[in-house]
């Protein structure tokens, strides 16, 4: 396996993305803390700051900014390691970074000045300032530049390595970026063609259901865009960290292909309680949603099998001896492992959410918030932290010292405890009807509401613990970026077994997989989209005052 060394200027690009990631973590995390405190009923925000301003900041900065910056930066580094990067590609990398950053700053400026308290879903006909939408568009366009640079990187490598299969991690990055590009086309169309002209007053009304449907066409693949980099680490990096080999190159590729095909035609499972969509088409997308569970089932097996094979090879031959002897004291393993464990209730909860009529049990309750704090804010983020522990020092030419490793382990425990408290109380409160996206309120009073508030106090306790975890993580990041001792930190990439089975050529038939992906999208969306447009009600005029804009 060919491994490229990073040049100084290359490392600088990847680090630029990491800096934005961890600054976002600090800012977004602070907003999260404030939300849980407000919702406990025992704290009010100073300076007349509105709850929904911090809620919008939290969602946009963590859900869209942190994730996208980390993923684009991490994926650039994976491509740089496995297929290399040319000077020209590096320049495009910087262009993508700056376009995304300018977009972020523009949107953040609008949110913080109260001109865009529309949450990260920006449902019409609430109207934010046009600059907010322009900013979001730039973040997406920047990520497209990164995507096409990654495609080019693999293409150039393939031309120089005729007949070789592409490196597994490069293959995975390209899958994720294809999915991201196909998915973001929907939200880009919605923002640029439907919302932006309307927000500027050039068009009088907007089709609310159409913008929502285009948002969720993007919104579900968005969560897979977060998850796939975590899967990359689980499949192809963790085995190296625990001293093992890849379980199966071809099964890993197959899982990613299935994720590409089934991540997109499933957006209706976010719109199950929507009044304007035919229930039969909702159910069809529910079935497709259940298909996307399959690659995750495959992933669960691959991971345990990697652990077991590695352990048994080291001589731990009892039924669970291999499990006990995993490198629990290595934070590069421990943090992602806790993330994997969180994906068990996270994934099971996801199946419940997508179960058609059962969705009404949990739709828009704080159960959903609890759910994605397990999936993205534990599974994905702890895996990202697990990556950062070696990626940052590798990029800065420093070392993850035993002390920092220990702090990382403490950080992982803090996260696990804080999230268990916060997410569990959110799940329970949601099941008894407590709504999400809401500031503190006693509503009409009564027993039901006081029970909700008691869970909100638990959420404030969990949120406080989590914020301590964020401070610690930020400290570790600063240490690894600027102060840890100079040295060399390995960039772990797992290798195949020497006698590994040859991966079938068909796995790299891009035309086939992209073709099936598009066919599934057309199948799942064409007829309902025609219905939505044909049966559309009179459009909606914009509303500014409900979000406090004059």
């Amino acid at each position, binding site marked *: *396996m060919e491994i490229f060394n990073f040049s100084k200027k290359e490392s600088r690009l990847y680090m630029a993305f990491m800096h934005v990631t961890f600054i976002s973590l600090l800012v977004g995390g602070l907003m999260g803390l404030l939300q849980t405190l407000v919702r406990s009923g025992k704290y009010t925000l100073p300076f007349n700051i509105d709850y929904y301003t911090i809620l919008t900041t939290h969602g946009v900065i963590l859900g869209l900014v942190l994730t996208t910056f980390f993923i684009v930066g991490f994926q650039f580094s994976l491509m740089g390691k496995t297929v290399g990067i040319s000077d020209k590609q590096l320049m495009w990398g910087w262009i993508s970074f700056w376009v995304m950053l300018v977009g972020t700053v523009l949107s953040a400026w609008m949110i913080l000045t109260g001109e865009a308290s529309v949450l990260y879903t920006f449902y019409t006909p609430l109207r934010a300032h046009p600059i907010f939408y322009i900013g979001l568009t730039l973040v997406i366009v920047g990520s497209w530049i990164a995507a096409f640079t990654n495609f080019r990187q693999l293409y150039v490598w393939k031309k120089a390595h005729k007949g*070789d*299969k592409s490196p597994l991690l490069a293959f995975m990055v390209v899958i994720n970026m294809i999915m991201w590009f196909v998915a973001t086309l929907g939200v880009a169309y919605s923002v640029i063609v439907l919302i932006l002209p309307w927000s500027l007053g050039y068009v009088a009304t907007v089709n609310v259901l159409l913008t929502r449907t285009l948002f969720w066409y993007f919104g579900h693949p968005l969560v897979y865009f977060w998850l796939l980099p975590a899967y990359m680490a689980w499949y192809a990096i963790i085995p190296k960290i625990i001293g093992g080999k890849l379980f199966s*190159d071809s099964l890993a590729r197959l899982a990613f292909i299935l994720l590409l095909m089934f991540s997109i035609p499933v957006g209706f499972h976010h719109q199950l309680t929507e009044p304007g969509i035919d229930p039969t088409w909702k159910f069809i997308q529910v079935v497709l949603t259940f298909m996307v569970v399959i690659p995750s*089932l495959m992933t*669960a*097996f691959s991971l*345990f*099998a990697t*652990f*077991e*094979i590695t352990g*048994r090879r080291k001589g731990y031959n009892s*039924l*669970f001896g*291999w*499990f006990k002897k995993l490198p629990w004291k290595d934070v590069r393993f421990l943090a992602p492992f806790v993330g994997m464990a969180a994906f*068990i*209730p996270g*994934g*099971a*909860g996801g*199946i*419940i959410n997508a*179960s058609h*009529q*059962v969705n*009404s*049990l*949990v739709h828009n309750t704080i159960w959903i918030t609890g759910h994605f704090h397990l999936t993205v804010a534990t599974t994905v983020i702890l895996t990202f932290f697990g990556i950062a522990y070696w990626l940052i020092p590798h990029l800065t030419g420093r070392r993850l010292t035993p002390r920092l490793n220990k702090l990382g382990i403490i950080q992982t425990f803090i996260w696990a405890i804080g999230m268990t408290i916060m997410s569990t109380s959110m799940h329970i409160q949601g*099941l008894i009807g407590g709504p999400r996206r809401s500031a503190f309120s006693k509503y009409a009073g009564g027993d039901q509401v006081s029970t909700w508030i008691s869970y909100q106090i638990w959420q404030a306790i969990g949120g406080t613990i989590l914020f301590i975890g964020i401070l610690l993580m930020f400290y570790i990041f600063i240490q690894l970026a600027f102060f840890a001792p100079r040295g060399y930190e390995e960039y772990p990439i797992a290798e*195949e*077994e*020497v*006698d*590994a*089975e*040859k*991966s079938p050529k068909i796995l790299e038939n891009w035309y086939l997989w992209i073709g099936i992906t598009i066919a599934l999208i057309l199948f799942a969306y064409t007829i309902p989209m025609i219905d939505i447009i044909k049966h559309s009600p009179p459009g909606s005029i914009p509303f500014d005052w409900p979000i406090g804009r004059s």
Partner: protein
Amino acid sequence: MSKKISSTNQPKEETNLKGTLIMVMIVGIAILVMWFGAYGLFLSR
């Protein structure tokens, strides 16, 4: 690098993955229990 080389290692089908099977089955049962719990709650309302 992906060439099949005959080797003395055991072929994959004989790899002992008993622990793995038990682990994933625990995951599967957790999914079933949570789903039926939620479905039961849905029906009771």
